[in-house]
């Protein structure tokens, strides 16, 4: 998620039950192979949310697959460097 987020940054994530994430938000989700990941919500599809990174060479849902809503924790509302 560079340059928006750098290695070691802290993010505050609000649970989706409190505030529903939407297109354009940075979301936290659980990927069945890569674990907890942060990516941008690009668009909603039939099978889930298509996610993307910030830079053009970032991996996106073409590699990760679409993310089911049940695997999304929530959206990032604040971030800071320690």
């Amino acid at each position, binding site marked *: *998620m*560079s340059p928006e*987020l750098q290695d070691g940054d*802290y*993010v505050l994530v609000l649970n989706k039950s409190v505030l529903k994430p939407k297109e354009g938000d940075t979301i*936290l989700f659980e990927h069945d192979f*890569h*674990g*907890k*990941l*942060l*990516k941008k919500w690009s668009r909603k599809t039939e*099978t889930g949310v298509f996610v993307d*990174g910030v830079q053009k*060479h*970032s*991996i996106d*849902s*073409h*590699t*990760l*697959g*679409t993310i089911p809503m049940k695997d999304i924790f929530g959206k990032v509302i604040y971030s*800071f*460097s*320690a």
Partner: protein
Amino acid sequence: MPNKTLNLLKSILPVEEAGAHCDIPCKIYDPSSAIIACLSLIRMVDLINEFKDAEQTIGWQNKMSRFISEKERNGQILKEEIRIIWGDFFKAPQIEKYPEIHELTHSIMMSASKCKQEVDKEASLALLEKVNRFAEIFWGAKGIQTKKAKCPYPPELEVIYPQL
């Protein structure tokens, strides 16, 4: 943020680590390495067959050893290249579009092993057809058209090229 404040927050809020990147290099996949390895394997089969009836001098033994070694090495390269693309590139959307990919990959693994174990031109040509189909699927998954054309070097066989 001051360390004291950060430590206080960490003591009251759950803090977990999340990633934002995956394997490096990202997005660099290309089945051409597997195709080249397959062509090399076939070339070695041809050379072994070409020289198998020659006088068995020390020079001949050296030559045959090298052909066999290269056949083995390229068979291994082919398997690894296919395995990496299958395991790292293909995800649910691509698998849904090409459900044959798992069986095809397994079939390539089995065929490549057979070609390593034996000197069998027919088996190696059948392997190339499977690798070509794998390449076709890969480029199709990326929305890129392909064409079949004769490679401009021995064994001069038809292989899949992306139309970029």
